[in-house]
C-alpha cells in the first residue's frame, strides 16, 4: 500500500518534526508536516457529501494540502481506529465521540490542541455553550474542536395522531411522571391500536395482538439511554454520575432512576410498546416507517431518516416535561481530533481548525443533515431544514431554553456498556426487577475503585 516515495516522504517529515521539536518552535512552522495528503475519517454516510465539500474548499484555499476522506460504519469504525493506532496507520484526523476519547487520552493517542488554539486565535465562544469544554481532558488539555451537536425529540406519525384526536399542540405539550406516566402515557395508550381496532385505553384492548404500538422501542439503552430514557430520568433531577465530566461514581441504584425504568418497562407489559425480544434484528426507525409505531424517541441526527419515509407525514414534538414542568435532553456533541502519531501535524491542525470554523460548518448546515457546533451555522441549519419542509424547533428549543444536560463523560465507557447492557436488557424484557440495577451499579462503581 505504502510506496517507497511515501516512506521517503514520511521519513523526511519525521526528521523535520524532530528537528522542529528540537528547536522548540511552535506549531505554526511549515515544512513537510504542513503539506501533502492527510487522511480524515468519519462514520456517518449522510454527512459525507458535506464534508467532501469542505475538503474540496479547503484544498482550494491550501493547494499544498489534500484531504482524503474515508467513511466507515459505526460498528467497525472504532476497532479500525484502535488497530490503526496500535499499528501506526490511524488517520491523521478523525471524528471523535465523547464515549471514546477518554480511553484515547489515557493511552496518549490524541494531540493536545491548546497551542494551536492559542497561536491561531481560535474563538471558542463561537460554539454553542458547553460544547468546546466537553473536549477538555482531566489533564486540563483540549483534545478536539466541536463540529456538531444533537438533542432528543419525539418523532410521531401525524395521521395517527389526528385519527386519535391529538392535535400538534397537545403532542407538543405532553407531561410525564414516573407514577402514572402523565399525559405522555395517556397519549401513548390512546395511540396504541390492536388488530380489531380497539385503542390501548379502551375496554377489551388485546395487548397480545397489537397492530400499532403507541411507542416504538429501539433498545434498552444500556447505561446511557441517550434516546431511550435519559430525557425522562433527567426531569426527576437524576444524573448518571456524581459530577460531569469525569464522574467517578454512577447512580443506577437511585430510586428515581429505577422508578423511571420500571415505568418505561411497564409500557411493554401493558402492550403499548413492543417487547424487547421482538426488537432484535428489527430497526426501530423502519418499524415507524412501516406504520407499526406512532411515536419514536430519537436524536436530531435521525431527522433525515425519519423525514424520508414515503407515505408518512412526520411530526416532531419536544420531549415531555417532568413533574416540575421542565423538559430535559441529553446534549451530545462530536468533535474532530488529531491522532498523536500523525506525520502531518501542521496540516492536520489547519484542517481541524477549518472543520471547526463557520466556513465549513455553514456548508454542513446547508445540507441539512446535522446541527453544526458554531452558533450562526446552527441557525442556518435550522433554516435549511425548514426549507426542506421539516420543523426542527423541537430540537433547537432545548438549546434555547437551556434544558439540556451534557453527555456523561467518564473513563471505562466500554466496560460500563458491557455491564449495563445485559442488566438493562433484563429489566426492559421484564425478566428482572428494576431493583436488580443496584447490583450492576456496584459492578460499575467497582471499575473506578481500582
Amino acid at each position, binding site marked *: 500500500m505504502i510506496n517507497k516515495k511515501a516512506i521517503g516522504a514520511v521519513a523526511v517529515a519525521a526528521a523535520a518534526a524532530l528537528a522542529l521539536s528540537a528547536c522548540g518552535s511552535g506549531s505554526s512552522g511549515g515544512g513537510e508536516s504542513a503539506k501533502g495528503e492527510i487522511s480524515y475519517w468519519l462514520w456517518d454516510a449522510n454527512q459525507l457529501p458535506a464534508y467532501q465539500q469542505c475538503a474540496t474548499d479547503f484544498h482550494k484555499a491550501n493547494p499544498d494540502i489534500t484531504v482524503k476522506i474515508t467513511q466507515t460504519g459505526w460498528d467497525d469504525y472504532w476497532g479500525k481506529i484502535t*488497530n490503526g493506532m496500535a499499528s501506526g496507520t490511524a488517520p491523521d484526523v478523525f471524528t471523535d465521540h465523547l464515549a471514546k476519547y477518554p*480511553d484515547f487520552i489515557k493511552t496518549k493517542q490524541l494531540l493536545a490542541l491548546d497551542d494551536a488554539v492559542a497561536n491561531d486565535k481560535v474563538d471558542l465562544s463561537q460554539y454553542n455553550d458547553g460544547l468546546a469544554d466537553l473536549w477538555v481532558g482531566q489533564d486540563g488539555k483540549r483534545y478536539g474542536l466541536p463540529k456538531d451537536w444533537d438533542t432528543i425529540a419525539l418523532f410521531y406519525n401525524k395521521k395517527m395522531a389526528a385519527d386519535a384526536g391529538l392535535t400538534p399542540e397537545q403532542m407538543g405539550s405532553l407531561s410525564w411522571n414516573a407514577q402514572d406516566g402523565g399525559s405522555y402515557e395517556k397519549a401513548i395508550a390512546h395511540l396504541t391500536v390492536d388488530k380489531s381496532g380497539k385503542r390501548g385505553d379502551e375496554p377489551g384492548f388485546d395487548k397480545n395482538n397489537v397492530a400499532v404500538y403507541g411507542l416504538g422501542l429501539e433498545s434498552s439503552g444500556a447505561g446511557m439511554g441517550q434516546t431511550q430514557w435519559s430525557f425522562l430520568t433527567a426531569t426527576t433531577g437524576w444524573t448518571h454520575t456524581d459530577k460531569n465530566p469525569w464522574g467517578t461514581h454512577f447512580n443506577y441504584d437511585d430510586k428515581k432512576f429505577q422508578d423511571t425504568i420500571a415505568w418505561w418497562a411497564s409500557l411493554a407489559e401493558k402492550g403499548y410498546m413492543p417487547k424487547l*425480544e*421482538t426488537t432484535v*434484528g*428489527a430497526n426501530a426507525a423502519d418499524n415507524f416507517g412501516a406504520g407499526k409505531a406512532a411515536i419514536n424517541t430519537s436524536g436530531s441526527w435521525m431527522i433525515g431518516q425519519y423525514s424520508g419515509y414515503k407515505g408518512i407525514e412526520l411530526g416532531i414534538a419536544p420531549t415531555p416535561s417532568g413533574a416540575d414542568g421542565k423538559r430535559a435532553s441529553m446534549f451530545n456533541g462530536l468533535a474532530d481530533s488529531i491522532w498523536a502519531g500523525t506525520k502531518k501535524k501542521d496540516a492536520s491542525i489547519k484542517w481541524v481548525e477549518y472543520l471547526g470554523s463557520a466556513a465549513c460548518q455553514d456548508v454542513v448546515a446547508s445540507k441539512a443533515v446535522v446541527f453544526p457546533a458554531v452558533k450562526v451555522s446552527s441557525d442556518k441549519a435550522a433554516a435549511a431544514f425548514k426549507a426542506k419542509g421539516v420543523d426542527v424547533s423541537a430540537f433547537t428549543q432545548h438549546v434555547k431554553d437551556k434544558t439540556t444536560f451534557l453527555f456523561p463523560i467518564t473513563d471505562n465507557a466500554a466496560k460500563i456498556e458491557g455491564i449495563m447492557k*445485559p442488566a438493562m436488557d433484563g429489566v426492559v424484557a421484564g425478566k428482572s426487577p428494576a431493583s436488580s440495577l443496584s447490583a450492576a451499579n456496584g459492578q460499575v462503581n467497582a471499575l473506578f475503585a481500582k
Partner: protein
Amino acid sequence: MTTLTKQPDPGLSAGGPQKLRKRGKPAADFRGTGDLKTALFFIAPAMLGFVLFYLVPTIRGIYLSFTEYSILGDPEWIGTRNYERIAKDPLFWNALGVTSQYVIINIALQTILALGIALLMHRVAKSTFVRGALLMPYLMANVIAALLWFWMLDYQIGIVNQLIEWLGMPRVAFFGSEQWAIPTQALINTWRHMGYTALLIFAGLQAIPNNVYEAASIDGSKAVSTFWRITLPLLRPVLVLVLVVTVIGSFQVFDTVAVTTAGGPVNATRVLQFYIYQRAFNEQDFGYGSALAVILFLILALVAFIQMKFLRGNQSDLD
C-alpha cells in the same frame, strides 16, 4: 548428509545370508536422509505459516494472559490475577454454560443428521448433483448464512414468522427470546455444516469393505441390525475424528453470534469466543481476553483427549 559416510548401504557391504533380511529397512533410511533437503523445502511454507500464525501468537497469547494490556501501550505483568478474576467472574461461568448448551444441541443434531445423509448418499442418492447440492450451504460464508437466517427468522418481517402466523400459531422471537436464541444459533450452524460432516462420514462408509456386508446378508442379517452391528462399529474411527473436529469447531462458535445477537438477549448467547472478543476488542482488556482464550484452549485440549482416549479413535476394528 553425514549419515551417508557413517552408514554405508548395508546391502552393498554385508554379504551372505544377512543380505536379504537387512535390505529393507536401512535402504529406507538412506532414501529418507537423502531427501531431507527437498522435504524441508516442501515443508517450509507450511512450517513458516504454522510458526508465524499459530505458534508465536499462541506463546504470546499465553504471555499476555499474565498481563494487563490495552493494545495501546505496553503489557504490564500481573501474575495470575486474570485467572483469579475469571474464577470469580459470573459471565465466564455463564459463557461456559451457554457454550456447552450450544455444543450439545449442535453436535447431537448435526451428527445424527449427517449420519443419515451419509447413509442415503451411500445407498440411495448416487447422483453427483444431489451429493453436490448437500454441500451447498457449506460453501456459503458463515456470516452470510447467519445474516440470511437472521433476516428470514426476524420477528417482524421474517418469512418464517409469516408462515407460522398463517398456520395460526403465535410468532416466535427466534433471536430475541432467551429460550430460543441458542437453539436457533445451533440450528443455523447445523444447517450449514451437516452436508460437509456427511461427506466425511460418507468417505468412512466407502472404506468399509463390501465383503463384510455380503457375509452379513448371507447370514440373514436385516438392514437395521447390519447398521448397528456392522456399519456403526466399523465407522467408529471416522466418527471419532468427525466428532473431535466438530466439537472443537462448535466450541469456537463466534461469527453467527457476532453478526446476529452479539451476546444478547441479556447474556443468553454470550458464548466463550464472543466473550473473549468483547473483553479484548470492545473493552480493550487484552490480558483478560488472552487468559480466557488460554482457558478455552485447555478445555478443548482436554475434550479432544477424552474423546480420543475413550472412543479409541486411533484403532480400527477392521484389522
